[in-house]
Structures are given as structure tokens and as C-alpha cells.
């Protein structure tokens, strides 16, 4: 019972965390059997048959259930009519025991050999007929007496809906981001479908919750690749999750378009031809932040308040380099940990170091904690924060303390650019709320994919991938074009918070 | 008048009546169909070798062990089988367990205080003071942590707790265990005093019959979970078996 209690806890704990592992027979499989032998292989994995294949009138007969499962078909058995059916994709085969008449996709066909029940009680069916009817290739090796059935992976036909998958966090630490990701992507999909789709085919967006968690994201991506047969995957949106799964997309040769912003996802690091980024990466943003501090604010003695995780420390690395390039020395770097609620000492030290600008490289709640302390201790210098300092999750918490904060943003809904305005209005009309970063990047991403499919003239993921590298598209984020780092855009805004909205100071580029 | 009449009335005032008390531990019978009575104002001793079931008997009365169906314990005429231990305590049965069991991280005074839940608020202090009168050793250590007392003092505190509670019946389990003879004598002297002055009812389990018998009115001898013998001290004292078991020299 003690154990039971603990188990209960564990189950409760993981109930929401664990996803699913689809165990499906191969779609796109190679099946090998040998006459008279119970040993067979599916995708070179050994399996044992309960009935060895046999030859009758020159045709190879195999157990009906085995062949169905091996090629991944759904198997039906009607005891009244003594009929066996196979369904795979849009193919449908019905055979009747003892009858040479079969029905393939509703059309009557005659077999050379009828399916039969052996004295052992096993039902066997002609392997070549089943395989070829389903569109598989059958090879016979007379010396080894081996039959090889090759089932090609089903390719979505041009007329069926084009499946795309979005992996985004809807529960867990980034749940609000998932809402924006989906809001942007779904808006684009609906707009495209309403306008007639992509070359007449509708887009079908399937959304999964990856909980901003690398292992859940892996499950989601596998499902998207294996069972959904997505032609492209959007997300995950969190860098750590992308790092964990982008190789899966590479293996499957399916393009993955992400809004994650870590510099470690650049092409020169990942060398993944199937991974693309839909918004400016953090390295670009920090560089712009420093540029603004030095060139516009003319600051000489920057101080930094720094969070502890990868998002913060990789921003610091870029900031250090950037300041160095200008020949400016950072006079003080004070650290805090995510979850810290008192930064009196840090802010005191920054103040006493005589800084003339405070550079904020933390997450949202820490930014709020810092700003409340900055106001309390009257640290009167310009505050220029990183991207987390430019979102509602920060301003909601900091309230009035956030007034005057300058931040580098990937998106600013207050931008008066007509394309941005049109997007913001459409988003508001559809979802009843203002879009926030990263909604715009998945919106742009779906349009970009549409263009790539049209350019490729195919829904083959490999061809789409090739097209993605060359297409150009002008969206909410301006001109989107894949660069050497597989980034589509470097756009960012320097904006200042006035208590209600973020006023755009400059838009780069 | 007095003597005969008093005796008569006492005889009729039965405080505890146990009938057919049976306790099983993991399939072994620890107590088998025990039947006994304790009258008001009586001191009853339970003798018997180790493992005879003496401690189990006291624990059974206090509701600490599960009783078999058919067991009955009447206290002041009320069936208390099935009561939770604290309820039995509130009915007026105090238990001074083996090994004292004082609350170590509480002061002497607090130990006594928590035992007075059944005493009405206004009388609590008086009851506690009466304990300090009986055990002057404790009076000087009111605010000392009970855990830091000597073994003898802890035993006094444990008995004091039972007295403070104002219970009608006190169950005492091996009060001499692990204590120096001089301390034991000191404690029994006080017990005798208490019995004489307050006509308190005691059910006493004590290995050392030399100490307990002079105090007792009647004796039950337990052996292997059953009552082997019973009777007034005067009668049973001369019994050869008792002599051999408890008074043999050497």
C-alpha cells in the first residue's frame, strides 16, 4: 500500500507530462519472408511467423494477419462472409476464403489462387496480390526462396489536405506563448484556406502541446513525422526543446520552422539543412541593444544585471563582445537567480559602481523584481532590457515601475507599418486579443511555407526544404529570406514603455 | 456500626468488572478469557512471570490493544470496550505505563497540566499542587524539562500525572523497573500514603511482590494468559507456589 500510494503520486505527477509513443507497424516498410521458414524480417527486425509461407500453384501464401500488419494496413475479418479486408491509406482490398474473386477499391478482380484455411487452422492469402494491390513492390529470389515486399512511404497526394504540425507550449512555463504561436499560425492557415488553399489543396494545421519540455517535444515531433506525415513542422518555440528534436526532422527530411531564438540554433552550429528560424535570434537582438546604448544613448559605463540560465548567459557573451568592439568596459555585472525576490544588494552595488546605463539580461519576473528595486533605491539611469523586458509578462508584474524602460523587441504591435497593422487587426478580430511576439513569426512562417510549396510544385518535404532556402516573401516582419545561418529575418525594434504601450524608437533594419 | 457497614457498602461498589477478556497477537493468544473485578478503593496486584500477559492486560483495559469478540470491560457499570484510549482516559482510568513515558521536551509542570484535561479548569492547579506535595522532589523542578529528570523522578512524574488527572482507577505497570531500591522504596511509600489517604483504586502490576503485596488487598496471578489463582492477600500469601515464586530466598 505504501508503494501504491507512492505510485499513485507518481502517476498523478506524470499523467499530464507523458504523451504517447505511437507503436505502429512500418509505413514505408521492407518485409522479407522465406518459403517454408517461420523466420521473417520487417525493416530488418526479426519476427517469427506462426505459419511458414508456402507455395501453391506458383503463388506464395502467407498468414493473412502477418502481411497486413507488416505493411501497416488495417485488417478486418468478417466471420459471416468469411472475408478478410485490408485498408491502407486510400486502398481497400477484400478477399473471401475459398474464392478467387477479390474486390480492390470497389472493383472486382480475379486471383490466381484463392485464400484458404490450412488444416492447421491458419488463414493464408497470396502475398503478391495483396502487396501489389496496395502499391508495394514484390521481388522473388529463386535461389534463396525469399520474397521481399517493399512498401513506399505514402506520399500525400496533391488533392488531400496538406498536413502541417505546430508544436508549442500550452501548459507549463511558457503556456501563454503557445497561445500566441497557435494564434499566428492558425490565422494564416484560415486566411489561406479561405482564399482557396495552396494550389487548391487546403492546409490542415495540427497543434500539439510540447509543454516547453524537450522530451515531450520529441514525442510530439515523432508523432508529427510518423503518424501525421506532416510536410513541415512549426516549432517547438523553446530553444532547449528545439535542440533536442531538430535532428529528428533532419533524419526524416522534413523542414522544421521555429521561433526559438537561441544563437546556438544557427546553421553554422547545427548544420541541419531542415531547420529554419522565423524571427531574429537573440544574438542579433543583443547586438542591436548594445548598438543603441553606445550610439544613441552615448553611454560609457554600462552595468549589467544578469540572470543565471542559458538565455541570459548567452546574451551576456554577445553583449560583452559588442561592448568590447566599441572599446567600452562594462563597469559592473551583478547576478541573480531565477526566483530571487530581493536584489537590494545587487542594485546598491550597481548604483555605487557609478553606471550610466543599466542593461537588463534576465527573464520577465526577475526584470520586474529588478525594476521595483531600481525605483525603490532611486537608481536614476536609463534602463535598456533584453527581449524579456519588452513583453506584457514583465510590464504586468512591474506596473508603474516599468515606465521608461527601453527594450529590444522582436515584434511591436504598435508599429504603424500597414502590413503589421493589417496583421494586428486580423488577429484581434479573430482572437479578441492583441498579438504578441512570437505570433507574427508563425503567421509569416505559414505564408512562407505556402510560397515554398508553390515554388516546389510539390508537397514532398525534401522539395519544400529546397524551396525554403530560395523563396522570398514579404510579411509582417518585412522581407523574409533564408540567410547563411538559416535565419529568415533579423528584424527587431527598440521601444520604450510609456505605461500603456511600447513606443517604437527605431526599427532595425 | 461503622466497620461492618462500610465494608458492606464497599463490597457492593464495583469499579471495574472484566469478563471473558481475550487478546490475540498474530494468532497467539496473549490473554485467554480473563475475568476479574476491582472494587472501589481496593488495591489489586497482578502477579505472574514475564510474558504472562500482565502488561497486555493493562493495555487492554486502556484500549490500546484490539480485543476479541465477546470481551467485556465494565467501568462503573459502563461498557468501555471499543472506546478510543483517550475516551477511556476521560472516563477516569489513568495508566502509568512501563518505562514511565513522560513527555521529554515539556517541563514537569506541563507534563502534569496536559494530564488534567478531565479536571474542570478551576481545579487543575489544586490537583497539580497536590502532586507536588506528594513528591516534593518534583516541586523544585517545575520548569525543568521532563527528559532531563532522573529515572526515579520520571517515575514520580508519571505517577503524579495519573494522580493529577483525578482518575478513579490508576493502572500502574512495573513502577520499580530499572530503579535503585532506595528510590523504589521511596515511591512505594508514597503510593501507600496515597492509598491510605485518598482511598484511590489501584490495579498494580509489579514483579517485586515484596513491595506490592503489603500494599494490596487482593491478588490475581496470571500464567500464560490465564488467571492461575486469585484471592485476598492474606489467603494467597501463604500459598506455597506464591512463596516459591516471589519470596524464595537466594
Amino acid at each position: 500500500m505504501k508503494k501504491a500510494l507512492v505510485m499513485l503520486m507518481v502517476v498523478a505527477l506524470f499523467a499530464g507530462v507523458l504523451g504517447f509513443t505511437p507503436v505502429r507497424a512500418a509505413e514505408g516498410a521492407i518485409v522479407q519472408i522465406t518459403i517454408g521458414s517461420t523466420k521473417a524480417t520487417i525493416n530488418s527486425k526479426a519476427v517469427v511467423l506462426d505459419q511458414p509461407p508456402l507455395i501453391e500453384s506458383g503463388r506464395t501464401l502467407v498468414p493473412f494477419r502477418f502481411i497486413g500488419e507488416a505493411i501497416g494496413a488495417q485488417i478486418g475479418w468478417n466471420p459471416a462472409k468469411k472475408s478478410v479486408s485490408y485498408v491502407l491509406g486510400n486502398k481497400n482490398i477484400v478477399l473471401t476464403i475459398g474464392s478467387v474473386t477479390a474486390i480492390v477499391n470497389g472493383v472486382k478482380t480475379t486471383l490466381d489462387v484463392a485464400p484458404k484455411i490450412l488444416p492447421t487452422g491458419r488463414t493464408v492469402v497470396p502475398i503478391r496480390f495483396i502487396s501489389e494491390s496496395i502499391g508495394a513492390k514484390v521481388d522473388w529470389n529463386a535461389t534463396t526462396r525469399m520474397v521481399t515486399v517493399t512498401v513506399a512511404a505514402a506520399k500525400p497526394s496533391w488533392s488531400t489536405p496538406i498536413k502541417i504540425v505546430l508544436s508549442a507550449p500550452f501548459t507549463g512555463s511558457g503556456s501563454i506563448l503557445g497561445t500566441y504561436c497557435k494564434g499566428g499560425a492558425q490565422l494564416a492557415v484560415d486566411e489561406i484556406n479561405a482564399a482557396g488553399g495552396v494550389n487548391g489543396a487546403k492546409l490542415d494545421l495540427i497543434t500539439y502541446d510540447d509543454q516547453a519540455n524537450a522530451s515531450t517535444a520529441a514525442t510530439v515531433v515523432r508523432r508529427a513525422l510518423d503518424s501525421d506525415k506532416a510536410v513541415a513542422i512549426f516549432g517547438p518555440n523553446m530553444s532547449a526543446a528545439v535542440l533536442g528534436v531538430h535532428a529528428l526532422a533532419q533524419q526524416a527530411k522534413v523542414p522544421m520552422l521555429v521561433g526559438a531564438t537561441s544563437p546556438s540554433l544557427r546553421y553554422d552550429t547545427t548544420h541541419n539543412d531542415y531547420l529554419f528560424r522565423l524571427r531574429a535570434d537573440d544574438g542579433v537582438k543583443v547586438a542591436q541593444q548594445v548598438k543603441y546604448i553606445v550610439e544613441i544613448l552615448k553611454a560609457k559605463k554600462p552595468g549589467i544585471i544578469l540572470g543565471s540560465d542559458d538565455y541570459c548567459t548567452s546574451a551576456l557573451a554577445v553583449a560583452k563582445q559588442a561592448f568590447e568592439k566599441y572599446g567600452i568596459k562594462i563597469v559592473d555585472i551583478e547576478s541573480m537567480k531565477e526566483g530571487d525576490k530581493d536584489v537590494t544588494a545587487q542594485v546598491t552595488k550597481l548604483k555605487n559602481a557609478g553606471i550610466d546605463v543599466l542593461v537588463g539580461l534576465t527573464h520577465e519576473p526577475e526584470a520586474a523584481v529588478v525594476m521595483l528595486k531600481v525605483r525603490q533605491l532611486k537608481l536614476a539611469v536609463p534602463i535598456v532590457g533584453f527581449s524579456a523586458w519588452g513583453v506584457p509578462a514583465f510590464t504586468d508584474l512591474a506596473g508603474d515601475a516599468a515606465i521608461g524602460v527601453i527594450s529590444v523587441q522582436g515584434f511591436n504591435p504598435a508599429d504603424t507599418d500597414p502590413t503589421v497593422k493589417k496583421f494586428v487587426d486580423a488577429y484581434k478580430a479573430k482572437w479578441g486579443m492583441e498579438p504578441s511576439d512570437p505570433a507574427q513569426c508563425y503567421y509569416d512562417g505559414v505564408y512562407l511555407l505556402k510560397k515554398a510549396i508553390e515554388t516546389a510544385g510539390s508537397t514532398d518535404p525534401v522539395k519544400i526544404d529546397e524551396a525554403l532556402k530560395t523563396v522570398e516573401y514579404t510579411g509582417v516582419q518585412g522581407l523574409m529570406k533564408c540567410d547563411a545561418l538559416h535565419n529568415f529575418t533579423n528584424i527587431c525594434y527598440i521601444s520604450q514603455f510609456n505605461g500603456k504601450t511600447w513606443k517604437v524608437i527605431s526599427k532595425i533594419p | 456500626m461503622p466497620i461492618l457497614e462500610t465494608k458492606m457498602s464497599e463490597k457492593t461498589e464495583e469499579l471495574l468488572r472484566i469478563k471473558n477478556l481475550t487478546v490475540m497477537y498474530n494468532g497467539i493468544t496473549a490473554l485467554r478469557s480473563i475475568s476479574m473485578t476491582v472494587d472501589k478503593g481496593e488495591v489489586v496486584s497482578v502477579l505472574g512471570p514475564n510474558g504472562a500477559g500482565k502488561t497486555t492486560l493493562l493495555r487492554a483495559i486502556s484500549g490500546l490493544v484490539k480485543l476479541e469478540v465477546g470481551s467485556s470491560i465494565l467501568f462503573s457499570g459502563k461498557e468501555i470496550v471499543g472506546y478510543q484510549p483517550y475516551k477511556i482516559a476521560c472516563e477516569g482510568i489513568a495508566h502509568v505505563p512501563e518505562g514511565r513515558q513522560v513527555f521529554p521536551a515539556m517541563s514537569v509542570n506541563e507534563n502534569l497540566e496536559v494530564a488534567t484535561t478531565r479536571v474542570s479548569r478551576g481545579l487543575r492547579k489544586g490537583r497539580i499542587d497536590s502532586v507536588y506535595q506528594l513528591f516534593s522532589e518534583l516541586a523544585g523542578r517545575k520548569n525543568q524539562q521532563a527528559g532531563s529528570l532522573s529515572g526515579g523522578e520520571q517515575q514520580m512524574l508519571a505517577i503524579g500525572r495519573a494522580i493529577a488527572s483525578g482518575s478513579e482507577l490508576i493502572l500502574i505497570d512495573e513502577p520499580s523497573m530499572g530503579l535503585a531500591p532506595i528510590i523504589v522504596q521511596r515511591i512505594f511509600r508514597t503510593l501507600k500514603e496515597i492509598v491510605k489517604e485518598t482511598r484511590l483504586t489501584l490495579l498494580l502490576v509489579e514483579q517485586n511482590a515484596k513491595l506490592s503485596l503489603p500494599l494490596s488487598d487482593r491478588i490475581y496471578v496470571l500464567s500464560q494468559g490465564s488467571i492461575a489463582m486469585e484471592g485476598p492477600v492474606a489467603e494467597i500469601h501463604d500459598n506455597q507456589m506464591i512463596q516459591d515464586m516471589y519470596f524464595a530466598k537466594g
Partner: protein
Amino acid sequence: MVLSDLLQNIIGGVTVGATYGLIGLGVVFLWQSIERINFANISSAMLAAYLFYTFYTQLHLGFLVAFVVSIAIIAAYGLALRHLVLEPINRHGGDKLEFVVATLMLCTFWLSVVKVLYGGIAKPFPPVFGEATSFVQIGSISIPSVYFWIFFVVLVLVLVLYVLLQRTMIGKMFRATAQNKEMASLVGINVGMTTSLAFMLSTSIVGIAGILLAPIYFVSLDLGGGPIGVKGFAAAVMGGLIDPLGTILGGLSIGLIENFSTLFISSAYKDVISFVVLVVVLVWKPRGIFNWTTKGD
């Protein structure tokens, strides 16, 4: 470094330290009453803060109603803890360790539940204790007004707890139950009742702390684990797990050590230094350094 800087840091350290102490009180109370350590102690703070947020901000129930309802639910949760966690473990022969394991799981469980229900983004706490940006200026020192609330409530809670445990019959009954359950029942203490009350009081204290701390911690998952949980526990240990005042002083010293190690050494080593100090203290004085309740062995 000027005097006002120093004072400013003492105030910051003391306030955050007091919050650790407040959380530690929940640990102390349960230990005092039933000698169990509830590793999901901190969850009550998070649950209360989210409940209050739901009632006050989302359902517009008004401060008093929202507060009372939240704490009532938290108290009922305490009762449920007893009947759904403690008792089943006891019934099946489990002991302290099993309770620790179960409550550790529970802590993560509540974090997951709140994450699913409210999302992971911290929410601003309504300014019921004054605006976050309202500061009281004393000379060159500026103090957020919510700090005064924290000081006040901590003071009141410590006083109430101290009196309750040390001076009242019910408090003594709690302590007796903790020290020897069987003996407590033999002296007539309804152990079931004191155990239930202990759980309800323990979760309520932490619940009150949770609502009080939300202006500083926001309505966030940070209230349900992480540094405050660990340091609240550490504060309780410094008070020997039984001394309420010692627990608050333990919390204060942790808060001050954190601030001063940042100020005089480096912010990068803040946590390392405070935990090293804590470990040293525990090894040196395992019964707690601020423990006047138990002396000697």
C-alpha cells in the same frame, strides 16, 4: 559604501528573511504537533496565493471574503492531507520517511496542477497591501509599504504561535501528542483532533504567508517551491524545528547572509555562501542555533 546603503540592505535582507521564517513556521508547527515534516509545506503558500487571486482578481469577491475563503480552503486542504496522506501511510505501517516521500511528490504535483490550470507565467498580485511602487521614505532610506505588512503579520503570527504552543492547554496538548502519541492518548488527549488541528493550522499559517508574500513573489510558481521552500525549511531547522521565534530569527539570518554576501563578496556566490553557512551551522548545532525551547538532551 555609506550607512544608508547598509541600512537599505539590512531592510531588504530582513524582509526576505522574514518570509523564509514565516514559511518555516508551517514546518515548525507540524513538527511540534505530530513530528512530521511536510515537504509540500510551501505548496500551501502557492495554493493560497492562487486561490486569493482567483477569488479577488477574477471573481471580484472583495478582500475579506477572498481572504477568509482562501484560508478556509487551505485549512480544509490541511485536513485532507491528514486523512488522505498521513493516515493511509500510518495505517499501512509507514513512518516519517514515507510521509517525506509522499509530500515531496505532492509538492511537485501541486506545481504541475497550478501550471496546467493557470499557466506558468507569473501574474501580478492585486495591490491590496499598497501599490508595489509606493515607498515610505525615512531619511535617505526608502521602504516599500508592503514590507510593513510583512513585518506586522510576522510579528503577530510569531506571538500567536508562541502563546498558543507554550501557554495554552491546546498548545501543550499538541506538543504532548508530538512527543508521545500513545501516552498523549493515555492522559486523555484526543490525538485525532489535535492531529487534524495541527494540519489545518500548519497549512493556514503558510497560506496566510503565501497571500502576504504574493506582492513580492507575484502569483507565481516561485511560491510553490524553489528557493523559498528550501530556505523556509532551513529557517525551521535553525530554530530546531520547534522554536517559532528561533525560526523567524533563522529566516532573518539567512536573508541577511544572502544580502551581505552579495554586497561584500559577489552576487554570483550568494546561494553558495548562504548554503555553506547553513550546512556549517547544522553540523555544528544540529538542534538549531536559535532554539530556546529544548535545552540539552
